[in-house]
């Protein structure tokens, strides 16, 4: 058996490669149940949704202390707004892992790659560990490497669409060319999508909508965690390449060449 090595950010070792988003759940207790059932070690929370006034409605009360909190900048429309949101999060003591979400399009909710690069540059200079959410683009990913991002988080397909890896070919290029961990975020609808992303060589996947809106969120969270683990193991095991034709286990025409041996 091949032994996996942990994914490391900021000195923190992660053995579970499923990251969990916390939006859209019917209750905060469901989030807690999913954290437990999946064994996730990283949870993203939108600063805008943290309710400080009411204990029972504060999502942070449901995230165990040992879980790594990744605050996201949901609602930011440009780099400066992302920076302002990140600073509030840091000042409030939510740590310095920031998922940069800069979205300038309320219909498709596609990330603004240019502003995301700028935000990453600004945030890295201020000492944040930055996880930028992007539309998969090799040039953008290279710029993010240069800017000092901790990882790149390309979308698999439109956020919330559950459509899987529609952008798979572009993500594959990032995995092949970029030295940073590639974490597939958005569009992952079923565990097999997550397994597929991991088999491709993604370092982790982030899932939210599919789990949050399932009839049994905790069960699906567990299923995703297993799929991520299976996909990771398959990637490490280097399965044989897919062929579009048959390949016999023993040569069928060996008899023609027996004199050449």
């Amino acid at each position, binding site marked *: 058996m091949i032994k996996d090595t942990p994914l490391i950010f900021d000195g923190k070792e992660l053995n579970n490669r499923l990251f969990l988003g916390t*939006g*859209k*759940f*019917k*209750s*905060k207790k469901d989030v807690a149940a999913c954290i437990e059932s999946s064994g996730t070690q990283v949870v993203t929370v939108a*600063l*805008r*949704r*943290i*309710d400080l*006034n*009411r204990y029972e*409605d504060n999502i942070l009360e449901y995230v165990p202390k040992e879980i790594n909190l990744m605050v996201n900048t949901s*609602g930011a*429309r440009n780099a*400066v*707004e992302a920076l*302002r*949101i990140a600073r*509030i999060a840091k000042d409030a003591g939510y740590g310095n892992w920031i998922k940069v979400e800069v979205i*300038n*399009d*309320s*219909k498709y*909710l596609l990330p603004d790659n240019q502003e995301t690069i700028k935000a990453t540059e600004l945030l890295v200079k201020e000492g944040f560990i930055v996880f930028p959410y992007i539309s998969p683009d090799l040039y953008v990913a290279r710029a993010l490497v240069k800017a000092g991002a901790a990882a790149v988080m390309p979308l698999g397909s439109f956020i*919330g669409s*559950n459509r899987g890896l529609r952008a798979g070919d572009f993500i594959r290029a990032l995995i092949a060319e970029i030295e940073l961990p590639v974490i597939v975020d958005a569009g992952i609808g079923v565990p097999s999508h997550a397994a597929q992303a991991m088999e491709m060589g993604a370092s982790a996947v982030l899932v939210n*909508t599919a789990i*949050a*809106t399932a009839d049994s969120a905790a069960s699906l969270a567990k299923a995703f965690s297993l799929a991520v683990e299976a996909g990771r193991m398959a990637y490490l095991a280097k399965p044989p390449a897919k062929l579009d034709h048959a390949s016999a286990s023993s040569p069928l025409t060996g008899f023609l060449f027996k004199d050449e041996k």
Partner: protein
Amino acid sequence: MISFYEINSILADDRQETVESLAVRANRITRQYFGRTISLYAPIYLSNYCENQCVYCGFNCSREINRKKLTQNEMTAEMSCVAVSGIQNALLLTGDSTAHTPLSYLKVAVETAKKYFQSISLEVYPMEVEEYSELFISGVDGVTVYQETYDRANYLKLHISGKKRDYDYRYSACERIAKSGIRYISMGVLLGLSDIPEDVYELFNHLEWMEKNYPAVEYSISFPRILPVPGTHFKPHPVSDIMLIKLICLARILFPRVGINLSTRENAELRDYAIELGVTRISAASKTSVGGYTGVSKDSLQFDVKDNRSVGEIISMLKAREFDPLLTDWRRIENGP
């Protein structure tokens, strides 16, 4: 996928199977895009002074009602009273009076509201881009401006005098708001003023145009049913519950990510069902008179509240129906460049 051209036939069809099939689609889309969350907001009426004569409105300038605008101290009392409930999204409203509630008054209100709320929206008279920009920088995140009706001829009959009579200035307000940098725009028609299919068709066209041209804004829509105001002669066209629910479902199917608001104009039962079908944002324990929360004045409501449940009761209802109530949906940041 439903096209805009099917609006007429859908709105004309009240058969249960039609309504149910719309509802099933709307419910599925809402859950996919919004999950099981419902945002709460609180309207706060600051002033009922008005310079317009709109035949359907309780604040109509020709009506002899007690006029009142809150002083800064009264605003503080009113806002702290609302904030105790835990709701952090405030909608500040005034009648349309640049004389009594000029930009400077609105800015004082916004400064005061910032002490109590994470997100502040305004429902006031339409203004210029520069004025909206000033309000944005002072802390306004959203603006509500309903066209009321898109039937131009009827619009002129309903809005007898005042600046509001200018249909085009009101229509173009959304564009000016978007240019100012404001994050949220809420659009709508008052149901009961004109022919509904035509109004809704135009509202959807307006919204689609705004989405295409100003994609950075988060849009929401409302379908308030206008009710007769006691002491006025105006008789709105009746709008059935089935019609209202079909409109909510249609809006959800045509605009999957757009927020849909439902106020306490509607009764508790209808509101409790509508949150399954596309509504994403509701008000709670609303007072629709100036100073209504502290009891400065109890008369001169803009409209009668039909759902009188407290914020606590609304939260309990949402949790019982397996919804997560969102009392905050924004964390105030410094607005502007």
